[in-house]
């Protein structure tokens, strides 16, 4: 039986699709059978983030409307043989799918996968409700910014009302330098405000942009600090105890070169 995990956020542009792609990839690298479902009908993007946009023949709406079978619509990943993507339809809108359709789809895929990750659309309307309808677990992505945290709180309320069990929080795009200067909300502050359990903290990382440019998940890049943070979240999902990454200030260039010197002096 697959664990069905929906990644949602309320506000757009906070990293739902990046999170879904990286968590799915990390889980598949640990040997899990993973299906990613893009539930953002009409604004699909998980395909391009995964670098699979050229292989789409059928999509989610084709499956729901009976033009294709689940197996025909699932696209095998380029690198990981146990990971598949179910793309969203691009030329339809969210009314093409309802909650029962999503539940039926997840039920049909249940036995073939260990994890089904659903990339939710932004907002709190039907697209979001469809995306959480079939979930056993919900992950809410926020950045440490006022509009994003506010929208996340709305979604927390809606998820709690839907009796899915408590959602867990991913704080994305943290800039440790700004946090230490008191110009960005810290992990502790965001957790205190939203009052839900965090499952991961992800620092801002330029590698995410270049990875997305290439259509490869950042977890493949050992140099990517965000990739490592997503890998940590995947391990926590698997039940491992992984300490949270330290989000206090990363050393700047000067400090990295002369850090030892400064520290020795500070002690003296």
């Amino acid at each position, binding site marked *: 039986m697959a664990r069905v995990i929906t990644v949602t956020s309320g506000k757009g542009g906070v990293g739902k699709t990046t999170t879904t792609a990286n968590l799915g990839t990390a889980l598949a690298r640990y040997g899990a059978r993973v299906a990613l479902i893009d539930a953002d009908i009409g604004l699909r993007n998980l395909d391009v983030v995964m670098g699979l946009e050229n292989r789409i023949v059928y999509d989610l709406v084709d499956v729901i409307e009976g033009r294709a079978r689940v197996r025909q619509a699932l696209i095998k990943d380029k690198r990981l043989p146990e990971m598949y993507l179910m793309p969203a339809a691009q030329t339809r809108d969210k009314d093409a799918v309802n909650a029962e359709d999503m539940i039926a789809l997840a039920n049909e895929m249940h036995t073939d996968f260990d994890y089904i990750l659903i990339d939710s659309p932004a907002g709190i309307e039907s697209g979001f409700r469809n995306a959480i309808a079939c979930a056993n677990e919900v992950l809410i992505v926020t950045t440490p910014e*006022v509009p994003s945290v*506010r929208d996340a*709180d709305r979604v927390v309320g809606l998820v709690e009302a839907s009796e899915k069990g408590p959602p867990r929080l991913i704080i994305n795009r943290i800039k440790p330098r700004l946090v230490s*200067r*008191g110009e960005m909300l810290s992990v502790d*502050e965001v957790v205190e*405000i939203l009052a839900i359990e965090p499952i991961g903290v992800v620092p801002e990382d330029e590698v995410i942009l270049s990875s997305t440019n290439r259509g490869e998940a950042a977890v493949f890049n050992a140099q990517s600090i965000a990739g490592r943070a997503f890998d940590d979240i995947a391990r926590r999902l698997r039940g491992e105890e992984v300490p949270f990454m330290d989000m206090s200030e990363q050393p700047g260039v000067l400090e990295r070169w002369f850090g030892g010197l400064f520290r020795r002096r500070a002690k003296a």
Partner: protein
Amino acid sequence: MGFLDNLFGNNKRDRSAQVAKERLLTVLVHDRVKLTPDMLEQLKIELSEVIARYVPNVNPSEIDVSLLRGDSSDHLKADVPLRRTPPTGGNESDRASARFDSR
């Protein structure tokens, strides 16, 4: 660091993260409780009516009602000043207005 922060006007209270946190705590509880400004005004008037039955000298315009976010529950906090009458005599503003009246 403390004195450097003060030197550059980087007081903890002035930092934007602290401002963000305080604003969020307020806006979130208002989002959840859905108390409109009109309803809040009406609440103050009715509160003052009820309180006036028990204690004198309540002015609805002086009541401060705020919503606060707590850990497990939100709080509606009302601060109801009770005017001391007759005036306790001789505070600065009373004297000032008396002088003004006498001209």
